[in-house]
């Protein structure tokens, strides 16, 4: 399990990283490496150069400005899970991160890598979409609704570096996933949030790409209670079907987990004043 050869680069600043990315052919950014390196070991990915951005200080911060929590791209999962600021402001985000993989994975994996990778079964995309986050890059800002474009694909250009994600603090929010017992990735995960812009429901794991359920959002806007979504059946067409579960099974899980996520949101004390 040895990857194809490549050259390793460790820039000290975002500017250096940008210059390397522009100069080196077929280069890829390396953050925590916990999606990219397994793929390289299986020889499913073979970049000619890796640009390690994980130690760039400017990409490593968690701060609050008004009603937004901003997390730098190179912040590792354990740092978010350990952040009292995140726990207080968006408890659902902290608990989502606590359940990613295992402790060793959380010591390496980053928010930037997770969001840029857009694995269909990853957890972070559900939070980004449900909270209506803004993705900051070295070139522009992208709203969550425009960011996730398909399986493992995003609006990022090849030369673009995700620098931070700004999460608006919701009134209340809850995330529940049914973890695949072997991998811990989401078989299905549902993130429900009551935000300044209304109720948003994002679903990961179920389909090739994270998506919102407008039917559930409308129902919850009328009544923010588990029963409001209990009778909403998600159609299995287009859902993932594999050895772990059929499309019908995943569609069923969406409704079950949405109910539970609303219950979690109702119990949570997190919020702008929480």
């Amino acid at each position, binding site marked *: 399990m040895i990857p*194809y050869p490549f050259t*390793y680069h460790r820039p000290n600043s975002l500017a250096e990283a940008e210059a390397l990315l522009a100069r080196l052919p077929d280069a890829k950014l390396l953050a925590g490496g*916990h999606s990219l390196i397994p793929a390289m070991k*299986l020889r499913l990915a073979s970049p000619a150069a*890796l640009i390690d951005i994980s130690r760039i200080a400017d990409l490593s911060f968690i701060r609050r400005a008004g009603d937004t929590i901003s997390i730098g791209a190179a912040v590792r999962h354990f740092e978010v899970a350990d952040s009292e600021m995140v726990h207080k402001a968006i408890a659902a985000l902290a608990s989502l991160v606590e359940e990613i993989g295992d402790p*060793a994975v959380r010591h*390496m994996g980053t928010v930037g890598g997770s969001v840029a990778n857009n694995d269909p079964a990853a957890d972070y995309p559900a939070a980004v979409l449900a909270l209506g986050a803004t993705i900051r890059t070295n070139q522009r800002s992208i709203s969550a609704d425009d960011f996730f474009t398909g399986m493992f694909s995003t609006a990022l250009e090849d030369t673009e570096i995700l620098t931070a994600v700004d999460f608006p603090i919701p009134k209340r929010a809850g995330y529940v996933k049914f973890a695949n017992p072997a991998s811990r990735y989401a078989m299905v995960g549902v993130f429900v949030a009551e935000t300044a812009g209304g109720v948003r429901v994002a679903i990961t794991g179920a389909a090739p790409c994270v998506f919102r359920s407008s039917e559930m959002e409308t129902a919850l806007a009328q009544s923010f209670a588990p029963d409001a979504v209990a009778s909403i059946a998600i159609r299995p067409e287009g859902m993932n079907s594999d050895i772990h579960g059929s499309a019908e099974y995943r569609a069923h899980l969406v409704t079950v987990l949405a109910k539970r996520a609303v219950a979690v949101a109702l119990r949570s004390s997190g919020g702008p004043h929480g």
Partner: protein
Amino acid sequence: MTGVRLTVNGSTHEADVEDRTLLVHFIRENLRLTGTHIGCDTSQCGACVVLLDGRAVKSCTMFAAQASGSEIVTIEGVAKDGQLHPVQEAFREHHGLQCGFCTPGMILTAIDMIRRKPQLDRQTIREELEGNLCRCTGYHNIVNAIEAAARTMAEAA
């Protein structure tokens, strides 16, 4: 080739390695510290866990170059002056191993776990062992060992 500088179990090593050298291969093949094992190709088994600047990481899912500048502890660096570490002692006492293949990773994961959460209950221990697979013990005695080690270490502190 890339130059790496790593402190492993207290001694500093400098070497030129192929950029694609995984940390686990550097530890096993360059340093000949073969207590760090490789049990899978999917980053899931935890047989390769070492401490990187004090934190448990999977050395099969990291390049040696990424770790350059850091301090690493492997299973060979855990006992001090011929004295087993309390976690090693507890694994011995509680029969926390059978074939021993998973044990180095289990012990380093346990040391990291006890550092972060000195007040461990059994459910937490099981959750924290999510990334470490054991094919022999059924985990029961591993949980017993970690629980006992956490208690011993809390009493000694």
